[in-house]
């Protein structure tokens, strides 16, 4: 895969290796995860049987705040008027505002405007700093879903991990011994220059 810094599939069977290279390529492209993953090493041994995918992800910024997609102005009555630039996070933003101020104090006169009546003594501009979503969480779920699709279907027992840009996903038909998982993952992570 051209867009990834490192991409390799390791398998005891050459035909299987080629097939899984194509499958991983298709799934990551379909789910638009190529921009998230930077390195990916897949190891499959159908005789054990075990599937292991280890890799790294690009740093993905911090949480999304109101200021990232809306302008906050204050009208003459002291209310905060939000002009929405991008609707992607509109629904979670409304939820966050309702939780903080209550539904009676949040109005949406039209699709791209929200008016919030803030309690007395509170700065309406502080709304800019409210955290609306953590995109990394969603992307991690997408990544696990993608790896579930890439892995052979019968491999239902799985261990997954994601922390500070490093992830692994190990799956098998049989029970997974934690020690074997650790050894295998450490060995494969070394190939991409990462130690846990």
């Amino acid at each position, binding site marked *: 895969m051209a867009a990834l810094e490192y991409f390799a599939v390791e398998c005891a*069977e050459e035909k299987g290796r080629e097939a899984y290279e194509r499958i991983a390529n298709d799934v990551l492209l379909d789910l638009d995860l190529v921009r998230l993953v930077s390195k990916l090493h897949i190891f499959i041994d159908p005789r054990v049987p075990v599937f292991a995918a280890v890799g790294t992800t690009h740093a993905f910024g911090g949480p999304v705040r109101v200021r990232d997609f809306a302008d906050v102005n204050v009208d003459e009555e002291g209310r905060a008027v939000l002009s929405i630039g991008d609707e992607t996070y509109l629904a979670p933003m409304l939820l966050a505002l309702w939780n903080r101020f209550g539904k009676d104090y949040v109005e949406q006169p039209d699709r791209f405007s929200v008016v919030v009546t803030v309690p007395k003594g509170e700065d309406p501009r502080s709304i800019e700093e409210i955290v609306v979503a953590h995109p990394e969480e969603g992307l991690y779920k997408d990544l696990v879903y993608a790896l579930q699709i890439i892995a052979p279907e019968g491999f239902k027992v799985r261990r997954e991990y994601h922390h500070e840009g490093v992830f692994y996903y190990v799956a098998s038909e049989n029970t997974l011994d934690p020690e074997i998982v650790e050894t295998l993952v450490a060995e494969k992570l070394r190939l991409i220059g990462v130690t846990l």
Partner: protein
Amino acid sequence: MIFVPITYKGGVFRHDEVVDLIEDLGGYIVQKHMIAQEVVLQCLVPKEDVELIEAVGRPLGGEVTLAPLVGTEIAVVSPSLEIHHLPHSSCDVAEYLRRAGAKTNMVGLARGFGKRIANLNVEERDTINEHDLAVYVLGNFETCIEEKFPHLRRGVHVPIVLTGAPPTDRLKAVIDPPVEGYVGEMGRLMHRTKRPEELSVLDVMVEEVSRVLDEKRAAIAKDPLSVSPARLMDVILEKVPDIHEVTHPTPVTVQMVGLRVKLPYESYAKPLRALEIEEGVTVGDVADVLPSKMRNYIWIRIKPFSETNTMV
């Protein structure tokens, strides 16, 4: 009279002339699709009349092609109905078989995945056995196919064509006892089959299925059926008016040695057995009328001449 399976594709305008011609020549229309302005007829026609049908269809923009799988019902067996196997490659396989004239049914196994846990339950086995042939669409690893396939074929007595990513000779080497057909280089994939090399494998698969079915036809010819399935279909369509109320695309599905009639078994099995084909010979005399494993349909299995001593 030797019948050949053909597909006629043409416009809706005056297509009834072609339908009449096929019927007048003694042929059978197994399936008729009307898609917008286009008509597709899948039929069995006398060998010597193919040129005549071509000649009549030409001025109407009709095209006649040989469709080796017309009059067959094929089970496409997928290890599961999960995204791992559907829509690619199982649906691609089914679609390609349909283009060659077959009626396909997808059999998604409840526990067909995994090499240690794969198995086939009784209902799945019986459903597969109601077809003329089963195409097993398996995956990418030789080790897995070798280990799980014996479990997936247990009790299946219809011819099997096995597909998988390992080359054909490797599939032949690992399957014991052998199955009737093998197609290598066709494993699990996550995109639509569109590259030339993938499409050529699907062509090979259709050829392999045709070859296996030809062998089955040759075996049937040694002890011919008491009545041709296509003829029995015509009799049912003529004498059972309720069949025209059924909204399925193929209310009567023609198989190589039988028919699937999409009417409830409980209320229609008795009248079907008593249905007269010709000169006092009834359906019950020349065929077994059985409950199908698919919904509550009726499965008619035609007996060979050696069993009935009757030929209609």
